[in-house]
């Protein structure tokens, strides 16, 4: 980096900067929403409280103690089971130790890797080189190829779904949503979502639950703040959007989530404007990239309030194919 002194290098105005500066400052007044302020300040406070609770005297005596307790208890249970002959009654041979270890490692991999992935921007410490790390649009198909192969029936259904999506592609059908203003979603991302939906593999406990709904603003342009609890493990499994659906199953607004929320559970995200009136009855529900809909949802109106209601997993399931869809997962 050069240290040559030039206009603006030390903060002095560049030629022509003064007039622009004046006009820009009179225009630039936007602020984040109050709910975001509250959320961030609460997180800051929580982090400090946690820090103080964890180490009141600076000595972490509880970790070795708890580890020792776990070891003693485990040994006790193993000895007890051995005495009762439980191990001798098992007929199938135990797998080789290496395999067991390997599978253990494999299970740990997503949880270990994902935080590192989240740290990636910080590691670059601003020395990011655009030229060397530019991600080409071809990346996503590659990623999609890494997904486990689906069954032939599921693949056929996925292909069928993709044709249906192609027919639906075009102007966004939801109003005022984030992804609307983004480029069209990748076919591979859409295909993957279709594939997941095609398998109908909705596992209990793997759904994204809506846990709170708050609304502010004016009729026709309401802002929704939605609390979600989801079993996120990283980009491979995360809540990828929440949406507002009319009583008869039409998509009114979708808030696409940019990344997983592994370390922020439950989490809250706001979005809008949602084009409804105060008495409109709507559903608020969330979607998982793996298992689709099926989690807890809220139903109600601005006037009457929102309560947890089960829409049934098949309610307006076809909305999962409609844009806006996630355009990628940041981490």
């Amino acid at each position, binding site marked *: 980096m050069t240290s040559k002194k030039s206009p603006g290098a030390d903060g002095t105005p560049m030629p022509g900067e003064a007039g622009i500066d004046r*006009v820009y400052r009179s225009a630039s007044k936007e602020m984040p929403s109050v709910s*975001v302020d509250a959320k961030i*300040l609460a997180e800051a406070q929580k982090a*400090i409280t946690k820090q103080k609770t964890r180490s009141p005297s600076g000595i972490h005596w509880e970790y070795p103690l708890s580890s020792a307790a776990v070891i003693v208890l485990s040994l006790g249970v193993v000895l007890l089971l051995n005495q009762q002959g439980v191990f001798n009654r098992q007929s199938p041979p135990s797998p080789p130790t290496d395999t067991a270890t390997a599978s253990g490692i494999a299970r740990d991999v997503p949880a270990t890797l994902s935080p590192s992935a989240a740290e990636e921007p910080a590691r670059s410490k601003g020395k990011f080189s655009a030229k060397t790390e*530019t991600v080409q649009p071809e990346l996503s198909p590659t990623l999609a190829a890494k997904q486990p192969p689906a069954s032939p029936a599921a693949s056929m259904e996925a292909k069928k779904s993709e044709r249906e999506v192609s027919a639906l592609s075009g102007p966004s059908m939801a109003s005022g949503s984030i992804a609307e203003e983004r480029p069209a979603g990748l076919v591979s991302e859409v295909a993957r979502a279709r594939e997941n939906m095609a398998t109908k593999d909705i596992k209990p406990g793997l759904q994204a639950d809506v846990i709170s709904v708050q609304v502010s603003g004016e009729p026709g342009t309401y802002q929704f703040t939605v609390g979600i609890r989801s079993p996120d493990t990283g980009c491979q499994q995360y809540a990828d959007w929440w949406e507002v659906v009319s009583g008869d199953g039409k998509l009114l607004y979708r808030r696409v989530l*940019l990344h997983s929320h592994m370390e*922020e559970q439950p989490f809250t995200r706001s979005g809008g404007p949602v084009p409804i009136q105060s008495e409109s009855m709507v559903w608020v529900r969330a979607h998982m990239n793996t298992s689709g809909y099926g989690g807890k949802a809220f139903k109600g109106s601005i006037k009457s309030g929102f309560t947890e209601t089960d829409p049934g997993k098949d309610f307006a399931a076809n909305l999962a194919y409609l844009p806006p869809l996630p355009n990628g997962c940041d981490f």
Partner: protein
Amino acid sequence: MVINPERLVCALIGMDKATSDEALMSRYRDGDASSFEILYERYKGPLYRYFLRQSGISALAEELFQDVWLKVIQSRKRYEVRAKFTTYLYHLAHNRLIDHYRRQATGLPLSYDDDPDDPQIERVAIAEIHQPENELYRRRQVQQLLKLLDGLPEAQREAFLLREEAGLSLLEIAEITGVTAETAKSRLRYALVKLRQGLAKDVT
């Protein structure tokens, strides 16, 4: 003795104006949550507008904005005063933005691959901005500026925002965005020229 809360807040604000960002962040690292609140209050507007202008969508801007502050909170224990807090904060913001661009289907905007040695920019005349005579005129000028800003290539817009919102010098902008000072200067100058030309054209 009765304590007036408003006067207490005013006294605290007065006291905190004198406290540097770096000292506040250090205090937060050491367990003083109120220092974070002051820091947040100082920078929430500029940082939010940095993301808002770059993304154009308030919900997306809030998401990125929230991510950066959560990063500040999570990495507080590792914080050391090596540079200005603003440099640190916008470093995180720039990285988050680039990370977001890279993970989108369109990838990193081409404007980040610009040529810092483009000689044309030095020859472009700086247009005069008309001084608005009335409120209506001024409002129109403001709207026009935001529209022009929206139309700038991302890298140039970022240089402008880091200058206007964060108040950073060219060297700091260069450091944050990982380019040479000449490239940062070129981006900022292009941005200013386009904005001024656009405003001048609008008025004439």
